[in-house]
């Protein structure tokens, strides 16, 4: 396993460059590419939540799924697989999204924030590693969501079809959607450029099997570093790019769209890491798998979108650090609702993990 897989590094560099480029073209700072944030914005654009600052039909999500679909058709890897605990996956997807919105970013944005000098993301990384370690412990105890089965191509291409539908609706009748007039949702790269860039990223991510959770998980499970190289390649690319562009701002507080609440940064990402290991991949990987015909991953993505709506409708999501009128720091974080939600998610993850471990399943 010492052999370096160069393709995953190329894909990681491409993701890093895409994130830097899309930020320069208008995406929010340290948010060139964030799967959780962008699915949350799509939930807002569809009116599933009414947080006015985070509503936009993010073409990055559409492009990633279409890119993966195109690549898998081209390489003859497209194959419908479905039926591996879809309801559990829906709920896990929703919980991963809630955890990500507590932290304010998916694992991909975690890396992007680190590369921008955001010290509070280190807390997220700590939580992410802890979450993955707990998930790996249950994998070693025989955790499984059972096997999937072949299905019809209609099922396998359902998320791709929904994404094409959203794209056509955007072209034909954009006024159907809710679009933010201020806040992160109002900040975006030109639609079709972002679509094209993410299409390429989707193609590369499918080919490289890029997964933010998989990198750390596979090192813990098998001492396999392949996917971790992709993770590191993204970080280094973002870091060098930000330094070169003068956009590297090291600090712990008041970082772009981030909060410095120690405990909840950690616990939010514990939920994300743990849930993603149970799901078999990070939010980015779920989009890519759904593009290649995995119906269970498509259900997970739908769960994530609903999770985003829940997070904003019930005020669970994190608030960024800010300055008050006297220019004093107001540490962001989450309110009581969010804290209770994180604890419920952790309890639910524990229950799902125990009840699906092999010893339990065989009873």
């Amino acid at each position, binding site marked *: 396993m010492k052999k370096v897989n160069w393709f995953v590094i190329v894909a990681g560099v491409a993701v890093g460059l895409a994130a830097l480029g899309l930020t320069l073209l208008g995406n929010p700072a340290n948010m060139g590419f964030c799967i959780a944030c962008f699915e949350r914005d799509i939930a807002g654009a569809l009116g599933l939540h009414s947080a006015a600052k985070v509503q936009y039909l993010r073409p990055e999500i559409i492009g990633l799924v279409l890119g993966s679909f195109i690549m898998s058709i081209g*390489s003859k890897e497209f194959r419908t697989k479905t039926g*591996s605990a879809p309801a559990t996956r829906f709920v896990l997807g929703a919980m991963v999204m809630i955890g990500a919105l507590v932290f304010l970013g998916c694992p991909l944005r975690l890396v992007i924030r680190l590369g921008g000098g955001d010290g509070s993301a280190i807390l997220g990384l700590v939580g992410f590693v802890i979450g993955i370690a707990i998930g790996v412990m249950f994998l070693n105890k025989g955790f499984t969501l059972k*096997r*999937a089965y072949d299905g019809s191509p209609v099922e396998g291409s359902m998320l791709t079809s929904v994404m094409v539908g959203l794209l056509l609706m955007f072209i034909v009748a954009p006024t159907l959607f809710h679009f933010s007039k201020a806040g992160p949702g109002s900040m975006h790269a030109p639609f079709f450029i972002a679509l094209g860039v993410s299409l390429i990223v989707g193609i590369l991510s499918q080919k490289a*099997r890029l997964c933010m959770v998989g990198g750390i*998980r596979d090192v813990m499970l*098998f001492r*396999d570093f392949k996917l971790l190289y992709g993770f590191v390649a993204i970080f280094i690319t973002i870091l060098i790019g930000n330094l070169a562009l003068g956009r590297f701002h090291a600090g712990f507080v008041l970082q772009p769209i981030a909060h410095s609440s120690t405990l909840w940064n950690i616990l939010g990402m514990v939920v994300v890491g743990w849930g993603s290991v149970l799901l078999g*991949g990070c939010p980015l990987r779920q989009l890519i*798998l759904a593009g290649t015909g995995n119906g269970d991953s498509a259900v997970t993505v739908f769960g994530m979108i609903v999770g985003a709506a829940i997070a904003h409708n019930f005020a669970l999501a994190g608030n960024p650090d800010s300055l008050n009128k006297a220019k004093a720091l107001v540490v962001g974080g989450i309110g009581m609702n969010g804290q209770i939600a994180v604890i419920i998610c952790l309890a639910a993850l524990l229950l799902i993990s125990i009840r699906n471990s092999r010893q339990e399943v065989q009873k």
Partner: protein
Amino acid sequence: MVDARGYVCPMPVIMVKKEVEGKAPASLEVMVDEACAKENVTRYAESAGYKVTVTEEGADFKLVLTK
């Protein structure tokens, strides 16, 4: 024989690892149904000292691991 068809990664590798570490077989047949699992099982098996030959069986892959 490990039948890992229908499982997404990392499950196929975990199933093979359990068999390899538990029984240390001289040879092992593994069935997977996606290219990603084929690549990952191959990478793991080679690191565990096995030679891997892959044949396509319909839409599935048969991996034969030998010491």
